[in-house]
């Protein structure tokens, strides 16, 4: 498909999806439609594979075998209780601090590091995966596609919906039709509600505590509110998360009588996704969400108090945030990092930069020298050498 045609199609699909959010559930596929459905599903899967290829080649994947294996192990536990043996689930992680996860119709699910880093236990992970897996087992992409064919009236709403589309156009261009539908707009309110119900059933059957689903969504909502998070993604949007909370609450009140007996597994979860929490905090710092990044590092440090890299990162968060008193806190964190690992060059560089800007050239010189000694081939050594020369010249002049 030519790119302009593809974009028009994408615009159409997303626009219509935006508008279908408030409409009735599309009808289920009847038996006599099954043959056509199978053909259409094949097409949908092929398209999904093409879109996944773009994502997989984008350089955005979080390449950590330990974390990825763990997520797939949890998905396998859940899969044993689905009635869709034809779908092979494959969970991949995207290096992105925003709150999101999305499923392609062929069972490939992408989860952002951002949402994983905010979870507390395996049951919360199971809740998110079960929701996403339910989109696949309930054939939401296919059912939606079929229902759209019968609804030309939706096209009338295109103009209004296109305004919304403009906000996510860049993202949609990369994610493709399926990815955008799953990641950004969600699959209509009714399909999302179905994924909530089926997902909660699934996690409960697999032995997990389904109340943890409610805890996860409550936690996400609190974070969205307290941090003023505004993201284009489904799980980063306040109305979507609020809807998940209401649906989970209703399901727990009416369908669940299992008490507190379910699996939570905080210890295993933390040990397997330990590093990811720190890596995600680095991403939050990159996008300038200082408070969120700080929370992430502090969460990691509670389990790994002697990690020099984490203390250095906390120092960077304070130094770059630059509020009153932050420089002192940053220096304390750098000193702690150097104490824990004297051969780690980064805190030496950071100390040098801090003192250089404070006009303490003599101290800056000491730290720039130790940084270059520890890391003679640092990628930014030309800067350090330049600042060091200025310190030396300053010393000679005075």
């Amino acid at each position, binding site marked *: 498909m030519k790119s302009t045609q593809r974009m028009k199609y994408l615009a159409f699909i997303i626009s219509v999806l935006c508008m279908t959010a408030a409409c009735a559930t599309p009808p289920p596929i009847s038996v006599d439609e099954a043959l056509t459905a199978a053909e259409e599903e094949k097409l949908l899967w092929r398209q999904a594979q093409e879109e996944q290829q*773009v994502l997989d*080649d984008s*350089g955005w994947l979080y390449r950590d075998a330990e974390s990825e294996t763990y997520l797939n192990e949890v998905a396998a536990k859940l899969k044993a209780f689905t009635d869709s043996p034809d779908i092979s689930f494959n969970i991949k992680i995207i290096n992105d601090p925003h709150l999101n996860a999305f499923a392609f119709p062929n069972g490939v699910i992408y989860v952002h590091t951002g949402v994983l880093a905010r979870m507390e236990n395996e049951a919360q992970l199971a809740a998110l995966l079960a929701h996403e897996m339910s989109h696949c087992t309930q054939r939401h992409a296919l059912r939606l596609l079929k229902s759209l064919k019968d609804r030309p009236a939706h096209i009338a709403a295109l103009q209004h919906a296109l305004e919304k589309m403009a906000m996510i156009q*860049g993202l949609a261009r*990369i994610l493709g039709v399926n990815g955008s539908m799953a990641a950004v707009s969600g699959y209509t309110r009714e399909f999302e509600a179905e994924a909530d119900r089926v997902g909660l059933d699934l996690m409960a059957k697999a032995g997990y505590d389904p109340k943890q689903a409610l805890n996860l969504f409550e936690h996400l909502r609190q974070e969205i509110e307290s941090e003023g998070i505004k993201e284009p993604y489904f799980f980063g949007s306040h109305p979507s998360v609020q809807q998940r909370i209401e649906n989970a609450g209703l399901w727990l009140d009416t369908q669940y009588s299992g008490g507190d007996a379910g699996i939570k597994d905080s210890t295993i979860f933390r040990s397997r996704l330990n590093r990811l929490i720190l890596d995600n905090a680095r991403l939050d710092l990159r*996008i300038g*969400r200082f408070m969120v990044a700080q929370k992430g590092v502090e969460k990691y440090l509670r389990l790994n108090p002697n990690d020099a890299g984490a203390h250095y990162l906390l120092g960077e968060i304070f130094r770059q945030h630059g509020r009153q008193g932050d420089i002192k806190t940053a220096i304390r964190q750098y000193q702690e990092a150097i104490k824990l690992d004297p051969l780690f060059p980064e805190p030496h560089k950071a100390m040098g930069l801090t003192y250089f800007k404070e006009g303490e050239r003599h101290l800056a010189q000491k730290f720039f020298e130790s940084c270059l000694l520890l890391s003679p081939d640092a990628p930014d050594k*030309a*800067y350090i050498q330049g600042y060091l020369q200025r310190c030396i010249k300053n010393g000679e002049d005075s």
Partner: protein
Amino acid sequence: MKRLLVVLIVLGLIAGCASSANRRSLKDLPDYNFSVEIPDGWFKPKYEKRYLITKEAKATLLYVFIQQRPLDRSFKNTQKKLSTRMLPLESAGLILDELSSDRRIMSFEVLENTPAIIDGHAGFKILFTHKSKTGFKYKTLYYGFINGDSFYNIRYSAGMPDYYDKGIEDFKQILDSFKLAEG
């Protein structure tokens, strides 16, 4: 005599046009306070409202983009802000944060990050590559510096490898000719 006079006037006009073509300040973009010399063969596409020049019919294949942005203007992807107190290493770091968080930039890879002097101002130079969704690889040279309340950046971006090599010498001329307006 009259014929000679006409020839002289025409020659004079041609000479005047040629010199003004060699050093074109941005008179069509009056908000900018810098000037550059535009090498022969380069032009500004009509659809472009920004200061972007190219020598290809399809500008995305090879272009130079020059921007003066207020320090307090927000970036698209990072909430961090540039400030007058920042060292070039720090402003380069912020630009790298912005670029590496951009979801339209795929397979982002930094090849070089070094200090640079632009029109006498201490700044930075970043050389990086990235891929488009279709897998086409681009190489970009990004120069930047802070002066007063503005962040100036001069970027050369081109498809790899053919287009990049095609314009790099011209870009060096453009960069060398970059001047901030007096006052």
